[in-house]
């Protein structure tokens, strides 16, 4: 088994535990994520409160897997904010995939503000047999 960093590296495109970047009016946060490996898949679990299946985007470009989530600011009407411990914003995070992860059959679900991505492992690299022809 390849070592951790090789299997699924976090792309160092973004830095900081909670990345904050201004984009238009909304802040962008880097969701906290767990990554674990099962017998036949790599599973990424990311906390994205405020996101559901219709507001999450997952893109795979070359070997960079990007997860993005849009959150409606949605403050209760007729109220004003009087105490704030967290900020609401969108989410974005990128991971670099190794060749061990199959590009096909990636599954994603969102439940209770948690995104769960299942990335099937690619089968063992098939040794290509090169027939040697006799004279």
């Amino acid at each position, binding site marked *: 088994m390849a070592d951790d960093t090789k299997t699924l590296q976090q792309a160092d495109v973004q830095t900081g535990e909670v990345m904050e970047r201004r984009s238009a009016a909304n802040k962008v946060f880097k969701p906290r994520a*767990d990554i674990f*490996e*099962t*017998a036949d898949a790599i599973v990424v679990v990311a906390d994205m409160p405020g*996101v559901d299946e219709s507001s999450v985007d997952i893109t795979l470009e070359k070997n960079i897997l990007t997860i993005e989530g849009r959150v409606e600011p949605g*403050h209760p009407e007729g109220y*004003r904010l009087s105490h704030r411990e967290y900020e609401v914003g969108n989410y974005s995070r990128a991971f670099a995939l190794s060749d061990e992860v199959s590009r096909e059959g990636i599954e994603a679900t969102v439940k209770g*503000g948690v995104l769960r991505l299942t990335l099937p492992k690619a089968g063992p690299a098939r040794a290509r047999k090169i027939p040697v022809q006799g004279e």
Partner: protein
Amino acid sequence: MIWQDLGNPWNPWQELNKLQEDLNRAFSGARTANVHDYPPINVWANEESAVCTAEIPGVDPADIEVSVVHDTVTVKGTRRPEELQEGERYHRRERGFGDFTRTLRLPFVVAQKDVAARVSKGVLQIVLPRAEEDRPKRIAVQLA
């Protein structure tokens, strides 16, 4: 209830931060940094009620308990860890889990029976109406 000098307009929300700190200190023992208290809670308010929202992704609604006593709201819950099968292993672990309790004191008495709490997309929302008997009353002044 008298909050500050009566010379100022009634603005109890300024008190909330301080009260929050006091309560956290009282309930959490050695911990002082209340920034790390879980879950983070925002409070929205108007004259008649308050709305508390908390980010609790991945917490089963059945594992959350909201209780209200007078002007104090307590949110208790458990965030369960992922149960890995044998042979499975973590590469990266950033999400926390475990039991949590937050207590928040509002500047008014809450109408207990009208409190509503729901969870949507991993965000808990608690609506806390102010008790009728706690609302300001207009008192007619009569000529002597």
